């Protein structure tokens, strides 16, 4: 018996995957998943280009410079003093300015911009008539803050992309079929309705997980691309980078399970997916302000608890994220996982009941 | 201001009703989707008042219609409607044509009147006239009571009628019907067929009707164009086709035994018997009277007797074999 069911489930999955992966209407999900990857690739390219520049400057300078050399420069120094410390500037621009100092008299000012580098950071000096007037030290990109930024973006991704992705795919499983008037096709096969549902759910899960996990991994790769090997190792092994990545993958999968089950039910109960979607989004949005009991009944609550780096809401992070990443009282990981699974199972049970009494009458929209 | 009258005056000119300018003129019309040729060099000139367009699925009937309406561009050859080329003055052709598509087509949030009225206005009727004619058209197709209801709530048959109404509202000279009786229940079908016949006989409109139900085509059309695999398999005048072989007789008889058949064969007519149905070829000199005589002798009841005419079905089958 169960062997038959498994073969049937496999058949359903095969059929569904063909539809979910190559459906025109599913295209946007790929886009959503691909955007952050592209973003990080762009990031990697830009960063490596900058570093290349910096290194080149450092090479061309006649002295090997260290960081303290750069900071040694004070404003008011003459060009000679500067060159005494830093050597001849590898890169230099200059131009003339005539500045009005009275109703009809002007004065000529000779500007020079010098650019030094110690291979990590850059030093930009502005000289006017041979005196240093502006000093700007541009620190090299250090992995620490970028890692936080990375975490933030990934979290944002988790919150929205996976939410909408699951919405798109799992809503399609039943509601989409009803809208296409093709659901009866499944109900005409000698297969238990709940087996069918299980198959569809697994198919959806497979699809979402593949898409989003791949995206996560690609993001990490793209992010770490341009860093020097030792920096990478530092991040991965000593800075928990690796385990974070692993955890993120886990969280992604859990998110798919949770949201998936949720939208599966929603797709059976509601004619119009927008309403439940909006409801859930709001529910999860106000989640932080809910009493502890109600908190239990949402996916994001557990996801937040699972997220490894609880991001410091520094003034640097944009407002949108700040709102999303606030997490009041986290629960312990095992509890969180359990919670999500319970929520999912609850949803699946409801939908299995629902699917058994589902009827085919496609009313005209 | 446009002049929809021009080609029609020609069609009136000839007394027979068959106009000097052919209704549709195809020469070498070829249409291709991707690498599949749907129409392969059709060449014909159709003149009938009501032309039935027949053919198996995928023979290119709908494609031909859509090409005539300019929805698809031919890759080769040309076509003329009322002597106007579909390439150059499509707009004029569309002015003269009313089209009832096969798949259901409507605007869900409108009631029938404003839907038909809008369509009328889109093909150039002044607003007031359009309203007037919209009501007329809806009455004419028999949506009288339902015409203020929203089209979204219509049943299949009613949607068909609404489609017909929008096709005739602007008083076209050519009415193109793609599967008009599709999915209609018997009474609705009879009604539709009756209507098409009326329109044909009113001589205001020429009709191109595309259908799978030979019975409907036979009831409505005077010419048939049979397509097959994107080519013309047969084009003929139905009435002439019908005037052939008068010697085939079909019988349905009760209370007969072998003797009856034997007696018939004694007359020298070969005949085939199946259950209580019987087909025979009257040998010359033999009349129906003789059959009745035999029946009278043997107390046989003849429930059905008729000369088989060469029906459209036979024509169609012949065309398919060729």
């Amino acid at each position, binding site marked *: 018996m169960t062997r038959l069911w498994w073969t049937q489930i496999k058949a359903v999955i095969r059929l569904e995957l063909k539809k979910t992966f190559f459906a025109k209407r599913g295209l946007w999900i790929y886009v959503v998943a691909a955007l952050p990857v592209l973003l990080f690739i762009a990031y990697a390219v830009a960063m490596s280009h900058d570093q290349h520049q910096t290194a080149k400057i450092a090479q061309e300078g006649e002295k090997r410079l260290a960081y303290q050399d750069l900071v040694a420069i004070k404003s008011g120094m003459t060009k000679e003093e500067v060159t005494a410390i830093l050597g001849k500037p590898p890169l230099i621009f200059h131009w003339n300015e005539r500045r009005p100092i009275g109703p009809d008299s002007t004065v000529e000012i000779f500007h020079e911009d010098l650019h030094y580098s110690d291979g990590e950071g850059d030093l930009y000096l502005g000289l006017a008539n041979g005196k240093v007037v502006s000093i700007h030290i541009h620190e090299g990109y250090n992995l620490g803050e970028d890692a936080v930024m990375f975490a933030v973006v990934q979290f944002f991704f988790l919150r929205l992309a996976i939410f909408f992705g699951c919405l798109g795919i799992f809503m399609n499983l039943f509601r989409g079929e009803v809208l296409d008037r093709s659901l009866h096709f499944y109900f005409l096969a000698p297969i238990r309705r709940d087996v069918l549902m299980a198959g569809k759910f697994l198919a959806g899960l497979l699809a979402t997980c593949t898409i989003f996990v791949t995206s996560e991994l690609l993001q990490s790769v793209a992010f770490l691309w341009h860093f020097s090997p030792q920096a990478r190792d530092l991040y991965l092994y000593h800075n928990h980078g690796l385990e974070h990545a692993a955890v993120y993958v886990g969280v992604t999968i859990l998110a798919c399970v949770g949201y998936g089950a949720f939208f599966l039910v929603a797709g059976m109960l509601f004619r119009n*997916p927008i309403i439940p979607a909006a409801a859930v989004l709001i529910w999860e949005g106000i989640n932080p302000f809910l009493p502890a009991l109600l908190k239990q009944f949402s996916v994001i609550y557990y996801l937040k608890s699972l997220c490894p780096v609880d991001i410091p809401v520094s003034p640097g992070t944009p407002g949108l*994220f700040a709102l999303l990443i606030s997490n009041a009282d986290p629960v312990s990981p095992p509890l969180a996982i359990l919670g999500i699974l319970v929520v999912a199972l609850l949803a699946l049970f409801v939908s299995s009941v629902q699917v058994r009494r589902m009827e085919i009458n496609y009313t005209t929209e | 201001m446009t002049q929809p009258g021009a080609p029609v005056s020609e069609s009136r000119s000839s007394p027979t009703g068959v106009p000097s300018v052919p209704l549709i003129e195809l020469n070498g019309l070829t249409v291709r989707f991707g690498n599949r040729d749907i129409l392969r060099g059709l060449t014909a000139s159709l003149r009938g008042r009501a032309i039935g367009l027949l053919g198996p699925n995928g023979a290119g009937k709908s494609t031909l219609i*859509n090409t005539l309406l300019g*929805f698809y561009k031919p890759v080769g050859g040309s076509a003329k409607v009322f002597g106007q080329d579909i390439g150059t003055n499509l707009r004029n052709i569309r002015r003269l044509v009313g089209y009832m598509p096969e798949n259901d087509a409507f605007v869900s949030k409108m009631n029938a009147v404003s839907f038909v009225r809008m*369509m009328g*206005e889109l093909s*150039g*009727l*002044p607003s007031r006239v359009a309203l007037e004619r919209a009501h007329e058209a809806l009455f004419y197709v028999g949506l009288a009571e339902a015409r203020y209801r929203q089209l979204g709530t219509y049943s299949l048959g009613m949607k068909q009628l609404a489609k017909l109404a929008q096709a005739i509202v602007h008083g076209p000279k050519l009415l193109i019907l793609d599967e008009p009786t599709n999915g209609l229940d018997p009474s609705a079908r009879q009604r539709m067929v009756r209507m098409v016949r009326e329109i044909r006989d009113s001589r205001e409109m020429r009709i191109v009707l595309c259908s799978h139900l030979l019975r409907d085509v036979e009831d409505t059309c005077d010419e048939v164009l049979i397509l097959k695999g994107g080519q013309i398999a047969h084009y003929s005048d139905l009435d002439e086709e019908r005037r052939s072989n008068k010697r085939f007789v079909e019988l349905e008889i009760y209370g007969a035994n072998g003797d009856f058949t034997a007696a018939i064969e004694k007359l020298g007519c070969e005949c085939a018997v199946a259950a209580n149905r019987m087909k025979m070829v009257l040998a010359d000199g033999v009349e129906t009277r003789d059959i009745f005589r035999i029946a009278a002798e043997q107390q046989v009841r003849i429930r059905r007797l008729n000369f088989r005419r060469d029906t459209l079905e036979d024509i169609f089958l012949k065309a398919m074999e060729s």
Partner: protein
Amino acid sequence: MAVYRRNYRPYSGTQTREWSRFLVLFRYSRRNLFRSKVQTGFFVLCFFYPIACLVMIYLAHSASFLAKLGVPSQLISIDSMFFFRYMSVQGVLSFLMTAFAGPGLISPDLANGALPLYFCRPFSRVEYVLGKSSVLGILLSQITLIPGLILFTIQASFAGASWTWNNLWIAGSLVVASLICISILSLLAMALSAWVKWRIVAGALLLAVMFFGAGFAQAINAVMHTDSGHFVDVAYLMAAIWIGLFRVEAENSITAFPALIALLVYCCICLWLLMRKVRAFEVIR
């Protein structure tokens, strides 16, 4: 005494002018639009802020009254900033209006296969799009452009010739700003609704494009340490252009001209989508 049989009647009367046909579509679509109560209610709602502006203009010119209230009269100053604020508020409203009314225009026709019925008549695809978009165009200009100009004229009549002469350019910017806003919004709405043939989803998608755009713009900026991320944020681009037009000091990291180029590119994409989807029959190979 006579018996009249009602049967088919041919028509050989006058015909309306070719160019005016798209207005038919305009009329009917508009009528459908305002059949919904919510729609009408929201439309009324859109006029609250303009009325408020009207009051402010009045107050600004009745110094005595302000004095009575003890408000310093220079508190309210009617200048380009004032109109910029007006524009941004109405811009948001008109966006919501588009999200509400836009998708209903095309998607039902595609979903119910009505397009062949339009195009088998002497009526082209361009005319169709024109007719449908004119509905949105008029609707939005009733929210943005027209009240704006009215406010300007009233202000002008209060403030006198010299002010008017010096600030005439504001009127110009009002026109241009609202035209840009209208065209991009309506094109976006129509393209999306033609693409997903389902009204509600199209509406949602429009919102998504805006918000996701904003979010992603921020993400880009955060990651790349730049400001050019804002180019994917339509609302931001529009704001940039307006700031340029009204010559106000507001922090905005994109200048008007590149923003305008970006918007034009988006418009072209929308048009392309629209023209691909609005056909009598989709040929499936």
